[in-house]
């Protein structure tokens, strides 16, 4: 399973990386996020692409687990 680490990146880089992963067509991937802006922006991008995801909160970052 691919893991996309967007920690430390500023907008729009997290969205660019996730969009590139979406285009590969993989059934399952994880996104690591560490800012409010990237969490919200990536959430918007996943919703627009009708992708479902689970959210796991860690102490210093959030993980979106995406499945098709």
């Amino acid at each position, binding site marked *: 399973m691919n893991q996309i680490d967007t920690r430390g990146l500023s*907008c*729009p880089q997290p*969205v*660019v990386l996730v969009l590139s992963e979406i285009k590969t067509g993989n059934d399952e991937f994880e996104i690591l996020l560490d800012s*409010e*802006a990237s969490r*919200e*922006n990536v*959430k918007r991008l996943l*919703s627009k692409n009708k992708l479902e995801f689970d959210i796991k909160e860690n102490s210093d970052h959030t993980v979106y687990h995406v499945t098709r």
Partner: protein
Amino acid sequence: MKGLKYPHTPNTLVAFDTSDDAGAYQISEDIAIIQTVDFITPVVNDPYKFGQIAAANSLSDVFAMGAKVCTALNVVAYDSCHITKEMLNEILRGGLDKVIEAGGVVLGGHTIEDLEMKYGLSVTGIVHPNKIVRNNTIKPGDKIILTKPIGMGVITTSIKADMAPQSAIDKAAFHMSYLNKTASEIAVEIGVNAMTDVTGFGLLGHLFEMTNNSVSVRLDYNSIPIIEEAFELAESGLFPGGSYRNKKYYEPNIFLDRKDCTQDQLMLLYDAQTSGGLMISVPGEKADKLLDKLKLAGIEWSSIIGEVFDSKDRKIIIG
């Protein structure tokens, strides 16, 4: 700026405390100088257009105070690894053209080396001390007029992501490089109660800074001009980080009074703008006349977006 004390002098007319657009300092009985500085990182790829936009953005603070532009100094952080001398020249040419259009002169400037390109201006303007138009002197019964569409934040972020349609780039570049000079002159001529320009705090942030403990604003969402392409880019998650900071900071004072507004549509009102339009608070009976004059002068996207009402708590209602 916690812990810093900025002493006022009898000549200080406007300073930090009211989150206004620029400082004002009285130098004689009938002249106050308006001083401001602003610089930004590239928001479009064309260097000439970037220069125009950065300059229009800097000059706007003077217009928002109802003042005339006199002099300007270039502020340049030069990334010589990625920006050629020719591109830098184009950036400065764009800036110069806008200062000339604003009726001012460029007297010089200062350049440092930096890892990321930045450009802007320090601008000095003049205005009669009694005619400074402040940002927080709105009155009940006023109408709020916005003179440019919003949506620049998501569009410039989508340009950085290489996801912006050409139509969005063209519209945003046109509006961001458009001077607020004529709109300001018309507003001053008609006589308005308050004025500011919409930039980093977004429409709702700057509007909230216009309110005070006795007046609030009711917005009409459908009347707010928004660049059409911004809606889809918003859905794709292309807001700049500043837009979310605006939401976090101003949200407790914002009340949504309509059911058909999506989170993306609402978020656009928090979107951080570059070189946005003037937001003008004009007595209700003069609003239509001001709007007609703005449109006649070619600022056809101007719109009455809300009204001011008596209120004991500061808030903005979106209807």
